[in-house]
């Protein structure tokens, strides 16, 4: 009797060890292929990793839905924003002519672009939906420069894995993986619904990431950093969102 139970226990032990090492190998492979989100620790890590990995495998090249002009929401809803800083107001009073977008990190030629420099790239015009994690949404037409064009012009290096983007409001910064950074619909948007992008909607420059929820579309962008690791930024969780309790990946 005891021989049988010992054998059973050994078998179970081996099965558990095989299972665990299988998981470890799976994590190594997943990380190698960019399927592990930076906020993969903690009790919600497994769910987050499954969501990110599954959606990445499914959506690497997929395009966000685009809509007809008749579906544009009128009026769109500007979510509450913190009152702009004095620094922002001074730039705004000057019509943002001193606004700069710096491009740094793993690029051959770091740059500091004015709004006119950004607008000199070929524009992309798209009618997409922005949906807040709270549940509401609106459809609008955005015009902007695809982020990929700015990155290519700066000479993005092959080891780049993420692009971190910063708002002039220090508390807001976020990052996307290369699938979203190089995605044709990821825009440095400067116009909306036929006019300049209003300040309430993130003007003069907002990064629109239409395959993720609204909070990834950070307002008032003034700095891009190309990187192979998110460790040096904030707490290393990829963006301000996980530091505030929200997921880094917002594709769902």
């Amino acid at each position, binding site marked *: *009797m005891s021989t049988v139970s010992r054998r059973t226990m050994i078998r179970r032990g081996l099965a558990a060890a095989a299972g665990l090492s299988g998981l470890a190998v799976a994590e190594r492979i997943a990380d190698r292929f960019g399927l592990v989100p930076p906020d993969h620790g903690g009790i*919600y890590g497994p*769910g987050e990793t499954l969501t990110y990995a599954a959606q990445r495998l499914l959506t690497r090249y997929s395009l966000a839905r685009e809509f007809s002009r008749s579906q544009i929401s009128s009026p769109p809803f500007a979510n509450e924003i913190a009152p702009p800083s004095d620094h922002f107001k001074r730039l705004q009073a000057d019509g943002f002519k001193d606004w700069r977008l710096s491009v740094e990190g793993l690029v051959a030629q770091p740059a500091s672009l004015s709004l006119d420099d950004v607008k000199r790239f070929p524009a992309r015009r798209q009618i997409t939906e922005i949906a807040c994690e*709270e549940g509401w949404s609106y459809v609008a037409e955005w015009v902007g420069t695809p982020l990929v064009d700015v990155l290519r012009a700066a000479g993005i290096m092959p080891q780049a894995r993420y692009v971190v983007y910063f708002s002039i409001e220090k508390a807001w910064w976020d990052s996307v993986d290369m699938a979203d950074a190089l995605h044709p619909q990821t825009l440095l948007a400067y116009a909306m619904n036929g006019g300049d992008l209003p300040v309430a909607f993130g003007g003069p420059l907002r990064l629109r990431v239409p395959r993720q929820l609204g909070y990834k579309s950070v307002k008032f962008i003034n700095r891009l950093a190309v990187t192979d690791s998110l460790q040096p930024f904030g707490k290393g969780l990829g963006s301000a969102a996980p530091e505030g309790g929200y997921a880094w990946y917002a594709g*769902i």
Partner: protein
Amino acid sequence: MAETAWSVDRLPTVAARTEAPRHTALVRVTHWLTTVCFLALLVSGLEIVVSHPRFYWGESGNVLTPALFSLPIPSSRATVPTGYGYVLPDQNGWSRYLHFEAAWVLVLTGGLYVTWGVSSGHFRRNLLPAASDRSMRAFSRAFVRHLRFARPLAADAWSYNLVQRLAYILVIFVLFPLVIWTGLAMSPAFVSAVPSTVTSLGGRQSARTLHFLVSMSLVAFLLVHVAMVWLAGFGTRVRAMITGAPKTGPE
């Protein structure tokens, strides 16, 4: 030493279980995993709803557009006019993390259960109404018995009755698939790969409203389910779902 004692302890139990259990181990484990996940999804889902207790129909909707209906509750967001003078604390961070993690466990558990249910013949044997019961007469007779809260027939302790079977079929093959579908329809990344998930429902806000209504139907099922278990003998039925109490030797 401990090993021997453990083995000896086990002997009589094994000997007593010559009959098949009321519920197989797989049904018991998936039942309770589903219970835990459903409660986690319910609590976290309600937390998320509280941030915007307004529902719409069509593609888009926000506080500037008319609502299809709103819940008469305060919101956790100052931007939502609810008529209440206060704003609840924001709980969406952990709610969203928990919602999707529980959803994964539920979907994997459900996948296991359905695969096993089909391959083992469990669905055919225990869920599909018996041939003699596949008539309106049989159904209305069984339904009336339920409405009268009649004491369960003795046979009900050994197998599912007709109304039970139809309710479980509805939950397993209609409501759960619908709630997963409407949930995925709200994922901007998923619908970029499979747009028909949301366009077939009439848009993102329709998907959200349906997700809420289907969830409430599942809550209604849960309440009736627990009430029925209560009427049938809570202790016995719950013990059968935990230990798989053998068919023989009624308590």
